[in-house]
């Protein structure tokens, strides 16, 4: 950390512009990601409530289904082997769909009826009513389970994605943006220093120039005096004015 942690960049006006646009980009990205995280969180809460509801309901429905199985067996006799042997085509099937929440795909399962009941004429002699009830119970259990499957996968996926998104949001907020800001501050201070240096240099040059000009003028002035009456001076004191002082 500290002031040392910044991007390796040469401090110049161009770099400053670049950093400024990067900072803007990072801030925009941060707010967008935050929005995404919020949207996911909202969905997540919704799913959470639904899962708990469905799970408890599922427990009850399964219990009831198991009970009706026992009832049917009591009425019909043991039909386990008949059922296990007569499996042919599935009547309840599942269709899947992909739902999209803030760019995250979630699977959605839905069960549907396909074809006719294979066990209609499966040679189960008695207890037709109990069997019909049993089928209905298990079918409703399946509907619940399928619903629960979508919720459960959505839950697991969302859980992961939310963690990743939050990590990104935090990284941008606490690492990337401060780093860019430090870089910007560094560039500005460096540029200021350069400016001061430049200013001082200009002053110095001005100074030197002034001195040089002064000298020149003095020389010129000296020359000008001599120029005015060059020959006279030459003639009069032959240039050995210094000796007089």
């Amino acid at each position, binding site marked *: 950390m500290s002031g040392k942690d910044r991007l390796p960049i040469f401090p110049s006006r161009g770099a400053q512009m670049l950093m400024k646009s990067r900072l803007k980009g990072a801030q925009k990205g941060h707010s967008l990601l935050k929005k995404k995280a919020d949207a996911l969180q909202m969905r997540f809460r919704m799913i959470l409530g639904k899962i708990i509801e469905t799970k408890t309901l599922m427990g*009850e429905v399964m*219990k009831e289904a198991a009970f009706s199985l026992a009832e049917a067996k009591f009425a019909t006799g043991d039909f386990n082997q008949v059922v296990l042997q007569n499996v042919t085509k*599935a*009547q309840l099937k599942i269709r899947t769909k992909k739902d999209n929440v803030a760019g995250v795909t979630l699977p959605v399962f839905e069960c549907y009826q396909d074809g006719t009941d294979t066990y209609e004429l499966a040679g189960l002699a008695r207890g037709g009513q109990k069997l019909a009830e049993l*089928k209905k*119970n298990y079918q409703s259990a399946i509907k619940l*389970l399928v619903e629960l499957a979508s919720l459960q996968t959505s839950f697991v996926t969302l859980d992961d994605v939310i963690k990743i998104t939050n990590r990104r949001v935090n990284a941008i907020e606490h690492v990337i943006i401060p780093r860019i800001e430090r870089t910007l501050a560094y560039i500005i201070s460096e540029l200021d220093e350069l400016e001061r240096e430049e200013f001082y240099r200009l002053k110095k040059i001005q100074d030197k120039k002034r001195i040089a000009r002064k000298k020149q003028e003095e020389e010129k002035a000296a020359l000008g005096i001599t120029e005015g009456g060059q020959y006279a001076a030459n003639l009069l004191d032959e240039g050995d004015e210094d000796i007089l002082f």
Partner: protein
Amino acid sequence: MEQSRSVHSIAEQYTEGHLIALVGEEDTIVGFLLAGIGERTGKEVNFAVVGHEATEEEIMSHIERFIVREDIAIILVTFEAAAKIKQFLVHYHSFLPVIMEIPSKYHGYNPDEDEIMARLINAFGSSSDEHLNTLTK
């Protein structure tokens, strides 16, 4: 808001014809078969009867067989069988097929022993306990 959006995007994205697979003890399987989820393709069936004495390897071999099949979208595992392969289930994160624990005839549903419920509570910390209680009551 959400309703209208999903209605809009139905129909075109559905892929149909997936099956539900089942691993568990006989009675539960018979019940679900009567509801009409069983399918036989050649010699292969989409359910596996595992008794109380089934070993972990046995159950795993069935599960693996179902996972590689592309027409299976959900694998239901009864509680006793799931308890034996807990290690695998905890690390299983795949989309398709989804593996779900279901209560069996002998073992009713108990939220405390459910892996997903544990994760729910994990995800929300202590605050979810209150949430859970308000919903389960």
